[in-house]
């Protein structure tokens, strides 16, 4: 992965501006096809997912009242892990993208939904929906590139602190939901100066995160473990029951964090994914925006279950093209999108989870060290776009 304008081989050199606008029109046509059939099936799907998730969660929580009994602990922990993954990925992420706003059900709506994460929905929607999805893979604008803690592009300056980034990445994976909350707060930037630290908007966001984390922690590590105590009394070990349920919640959160971190790393980090110069999006057209999403995302191949458990982020390319279409439709349109990549000789990056995760980790390790070759100079064969920076055309 290198910034597009400094690549030795420019992957879009063969496309004319007309080609790029045509790609945009063809993608709009795919979008229209989905909109034409979007309806009851999608509403039923998300309602069913919510029902399944809540039943699995209620069942697992009930089992964990008997956490002293090892089979109950194992089943309950597994169930809670699955329910937490479903809640974050297929339900929370997608509802917060507005994918189901069309239903006009105030209960299942991007403006009212709150999810099981340290990050308050409002803040996440800002950093994810607004910044990441608009400025996908633009170095210096899309903080998802390395989450502000890692060097993920050859063009980024190397400093000795980067030697530790495999460790940072692992710690971030374990505590991913807290990492995301810190990321949404732009902690690194906002804690730097006293002026930024005392900015009222930042302080309000900080308080909101604090409230959310307090409730989340009380729920998983105090209230639910405490509910197991009465059963523990009957079995002669109340403390054991508390600790058993406590551990089950911790393990389920860890599993969810590791899983979502892996899936999300596969979205933009694997080999073959492009990044873009800050200046390259100036005056970007709709076709160019689409093209950037195509080149900046990577898919995970796998079974239907795999797609559900990743919240269909396994179809990251389709998701980035159409972030507000119901995620369960991505599998349907993926062949059409892929055909479009082939038609225009573009690289549709996709691979099995293990391969993609390994590829992303390999990059984390590689870029912990300084580059072997010095960076290329800017390729001036790509003409700069319009001088005035304008919002992307709609």
């Amino acid at each position, binding site marked *: 992965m290198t910034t597009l304008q400094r690549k030795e081989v420019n992957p879009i050199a063969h496309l004319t501006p007309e080609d790029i606008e045509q790609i945009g029109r063809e993608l709009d046509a795919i979008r229209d096809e989905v909109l034409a059939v979007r309806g*009851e099936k999608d509403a039923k799907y998300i309602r069913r997912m919510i029902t399944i998730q809540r039943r699995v969660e209620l069942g697992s929580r009930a089992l964990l009242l008997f956490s002293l009994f090892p089979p109950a602990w194992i089943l309950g922990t597994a169930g809670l892990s699955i329910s937490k993954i479903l809640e974050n990925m297929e339900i929370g992420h997608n509802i917060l993208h507005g994918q189901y706003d069309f239903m*006009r*059900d105030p209960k299942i709506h991007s403006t009212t939904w709150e999810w099981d994460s340290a990050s308050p929905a409002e803040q996440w*929607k800002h950093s994810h929906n*607004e910044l990441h999805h608009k400025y996908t893979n633009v170095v210096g604008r899309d903080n998802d590139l390395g989450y502000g803690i890692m060097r993920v592009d050859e063009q980024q300056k190397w400093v000795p602190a980067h030697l530790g980034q495999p460790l940072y990445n692992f710690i971030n994976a374990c505590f991913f939901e807290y990492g995301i909350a810190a990321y949404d707060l732009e902690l690194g930037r906002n804690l730097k100066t006293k002026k930024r630290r005392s900015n009222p908007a930042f302080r309000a966001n900080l308080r909101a995160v604090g409230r959310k984390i307090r409730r989340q922690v009380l*729920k998983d590590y105090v209230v639910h473990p405490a509910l197991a105590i009465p059963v523990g009394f009957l079995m002669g070990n109340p403390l054991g029951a508390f600790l058993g349920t406590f551990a089950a919640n911790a393990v389920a959160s860890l599993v969810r964090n590791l899983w979502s971190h892996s899936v999300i790393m596969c979205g933009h980090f694997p080999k073959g994914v492009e990044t873009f110069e800050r200046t390259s999006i100036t005056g970007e057209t709709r076709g160019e925006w689409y093209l950037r999403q195509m080149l900046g995302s990577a898919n995970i191949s796998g079974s239907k279950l795999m797609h559900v458990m990743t919240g269909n982020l396994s179809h990251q390319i389709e998701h980035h093209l159409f972030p507000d279409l119901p995620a369960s439709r991505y599998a349907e349109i993926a062949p059409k999108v892929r055909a479009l990549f082939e038609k225009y000789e573009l690289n549709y990056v996709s691979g099995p989870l293990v391969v993609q995760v390994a590829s992303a980790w390999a990059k984390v390790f590689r870029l912990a060290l300084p580059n072997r070759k010095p960076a290329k100079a800017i390729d001036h064969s790509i003409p700069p776009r319009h001088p005035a920076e304008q*919002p*992307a055309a709609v």
Partner: protein
Amino acid sequence: MTSPARTRRLGHVAVTRTLRDGAWRVVELITTPVVPADYLDVIAPLRNPTVLRARIEAVRRETANAVTLELRPGRNWQPHQPGQYVRLGVDVDGVRLWRAYSVSSAAGRKDGRFTVTVNAVKDGVVSGYLLKHARRGMIVTLDLPAGDFVLPASPPPKALFVTAGSGITPVMGMLRSTLPSLQDVIVVHSARTPSDVVFGAELRSLAEAGRIRLIERHTGADGRLKPDELASLVPDLFERETWACGPGEMLDDLTSHWTDAGAADRLHVERFRPTVLVAGDGGTVTFERTGTTAEATGGTTILDAGEAAGQLMPSGCRMGICYKCVLPMREGIVRDVRDGTITTATEVDGDKVLIQTCISAAAGPCRFDA
């Protein structure tokens, strides 16, 4: 001054309340980040105290074009007064659409149920859907009964009901509830043909039993009823307390007739306003809270139009992907500038239709709650 006993009792109440609030807070922690009712929905959707729902218990066909739904309302329902309407939220092809329907059953049923009678209107999305797809067991969302088209506490000695088409529905609710206490009742009802008369059999048998005087008008053969004709059919027209419900034109005619006679206070009308919004190009955009208005062309987004007029607007990506700019549209019609999709909001929707202002352009007048 408060007596010691009362203080003790108040103290007791306060302690109980504190304990109950505390217990409830723990329950809320168990289910955070959602509320306990969200889990209850998985098991018992009618028990949710924050979302009023009803289950359809029976579906009865009235005419080729009308169907009566018997509804069992969920928790927090309040009984209706005869003549009132309820708003029903029905999921049509996955989208919740709201419509108002008059309650057609008698008030105060022991089983707590009530009925609405839905008349299919031409191109009516919701009425057409209910006529075809309403089934026993279906859940609909609803709102509390509303409307002041009701009978007074002391019934008038002489009553007249003038209705047309589905306008009979609220009147049927009144007749079924209060007929025993009404002495002299005339019902003038217009429908296209005899078989189009909703509740025809029941009305005719009431007439045969001498409980009401029924004047049926079949507009397919005899044309529309004029107020002058009404005067000849009902000689003591202005001595009667009159309730009228039907198409706007009919009500306009009646209103001017009663006003001319100086009897406007004896006429009570209920207007069904079938809001027909036709997509055009551009329109006046009103932001109700600030009073800002903007003339927007069909090519300008609501966001741009609002900002240009000095309205403070929430905004984000400005390309339709982040959903940060959504505002509630109270009434109006907009077009998605990307794909041309039309979205409408009518008064019946309340302030519930959220519009992405960055990719929506006015396709007619629009009023926003902002």
